Structures are given as structure tokens and as C-alpha cells.
């Protein structure tokens, strides 16, 4: 795209933009500028398409990284008394992040002794939950190293898969551009 570069032209363009934004339909573009406006529109479309092509995997990578951090915290605190293992529901988190909504999942508390399911923190709008302890230890720690290690490896692999998808998408786009 070529910038016309002339000050009076820039003024005209600014005026046209202002009219567009104010909702006036009476925009009259002189013929000599119409090709330039078409180029601007096309470029906006291309950028939208590029963003759409990568947005899903980008969100997924962000969530995977955040979850990896949670799992690393669980592994780090395997010997800390009273530490409660935490995790997120990945499917919910991805749906929320893509839709831009924040889910509130209240845990049913039928006794005051119950652990509050929601830790009060959230990752991209999805609450971080405490894991249900399967073998609680005497010091109040609920980290099960087998679960955490397995989830950590699983999450790392899926992160790599997302990275690969993004990489391939970029290559695909480059092929489309360069032929």
C-alpha cells in the first residue's frame, strides 16, 4: 500500500474517516483515491484473517502455559504441610477464553467443614480449583505426585502440539503469500 504523503490528501482522508465514524452515508471518494481505499480495506481483511487463523492456538498456548505453572507449583510444594493441589478444568477454560466470558462455578458446600472448591483465583476467566484429594496425608498436603507428574507431562506434550500447529499455520500462510 502506498501512502499518498501529501498533506492536503491526508486532511481529506481524515475527514472521510470522521464521516465514516459519525455514521454518515454521504461519503464521496474521489476516483483517484478509490484504489488506495480498496487497498486499506483489503489489508484490514488480511490482518483479520491472520488473527483468526492463529487466535485459537494462541489462546490454547496461553492456557497451557498457565496450567503448566499451576502444576509446577503443585510439584514444588509436594512436601509443604497444608498445601492443597490446584488445577483448572481445561475444556471450560478454553471455552471461556475464546468466548471472553468468565465462568463462576460455585461448589456445593453442605458442611462448614468443606473445603471451598474455588481458590478465588482465576486464569483467563476460569476459576482455579482445588483437586479432590485421593490419598490425603497426615500433614494436610493433597499433592499426589503420580497425578501431578502425569498431568505435567501431558500438558507439556499438548503445549508442544499447539506450538507445532501454530508453526504449520505460519508456514501455510507463508506458502500462500510466496507461492
Amino acid at each position: 500500500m502506498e501512502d499518498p504523503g501529501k498533506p492536503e490528501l491526508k486532511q481529506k482522508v481524515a475527514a472521510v474517516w470522521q464521516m465514516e465514524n459519525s455514521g454518515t452515508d454521504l461519503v464521496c471518494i474521489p476516483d483517484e483515491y478509490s484504489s488506495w481505499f480498496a487497498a486499506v480495506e483489503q489489508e484490514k481483511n488480511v490482518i483479520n484473517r491472520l488473527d483468526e487463523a492463529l487466535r485459537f492456538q494462541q489462546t490454547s498456548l496461553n492456557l497451557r502455559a498457565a496450567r503448566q505453572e499451576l502444576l509446577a507449583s503443585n510439584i514444588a510444594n509436594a512436601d509443604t504441610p497444608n498445601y492443597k493441589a490446584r488445577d483448572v478444568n481445561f475444556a471450560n477454560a478454553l471455552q471461556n477464553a475464546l468466548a471472553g466470558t468468565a465462568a463462576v462455578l460455585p461448589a456445593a458446600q453442605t458442611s462448614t467443614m468443606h473445603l471451598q472448591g474455588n481458590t478465588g483465583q482465576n486464569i483467563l476467566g476460569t476459576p482455579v480449583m482445588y483437586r479432590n484429594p485421593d490419598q490425603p496425608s497426615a500433614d494436610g498436603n493433597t499433592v499426589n505426585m503420580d497425578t501431578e507428574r502425569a498431568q505435567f507431562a501431558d500438558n507439556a506434550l499438548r503445549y508442544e502440539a499447539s506450538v507445532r500447529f501454530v508453526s504449520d499455520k505460519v508456514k501455510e500462510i507463508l506458502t500462500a503469500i510466496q507461492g
Partner: protein
Amino acid sequence: MSLFNIFNVAGSAMTAQSERLNTVASNLANADSTTSANGQPYRAKQVVFSTTQMGDASAQGVKVAAVVEDNSPMKLVYDPKHPMANAQGYVEMPNVNVVDEMVNMISASRAYQNNVEVLNTSKTLLLKTLAIGQ
């Protein structure tokens, strides 16, 4: 970026575990020390771990909150020839339980290895991320 935070989390855990290993080494080395700096027999030491926040709320690292002394009674060994023997011929030996210490040592070293692996995995993921589009 949250993957960088994992370095801090795993690093803090490694520091804490190595401090635990340090106390184990100290306890095992002094398992027969009948006198310490205060003239009393050596008392076994234990570390107390606690959670500490690193960066954002979901990154919880570990810190050593305190090093406490074991208050269990000293072992009494009958050895009248020993210079530290009391009037009845008993010597107060440190309250170090060697079996406990060995278990602690294995646990600390395994936890340390776990965290090294976490760190390496995060490093691999970051490197792969850097290679996007290449």
C-alpha cells in the same frame, strides 16, 4: 509470561530441598556428637517448608520458614568409661534417628530431581515456542 515463572517456582523448591538435604547431612554427621557449641549433646534439626508466592497468584513456590530442633529425649547409652558419662555411667547421645534421616534424604533428593525435570521441561517448551515460524 507464565512459563518463565516456572523457573522461579522450581528454583525455589530446589533451594528448599537442598536446604533440607543440608540439615540431613548435618544430622547424620553429628549422629555421635556428644557435645555441641552449647555444651549439650547435638539435637537433630528439621526444616519447615511453607508456600510462598512467586510473581502471580497461581505460581506458588516453596521457602524454608524455619529450622526447628527436635525436642525428643536424648538417647542414653551406658558407657562408664566415656568422659561425658554421668554419675550412673550413662552418656547422653544425640537424638538423631538415622533411619528417619535416610528416609528424609531419599525424599529430598527425589523431590529435587522432580523439580529439575520440571525446569528442563519448561526450558524445552520455551525453546520450542521461540522456534515458532522457523
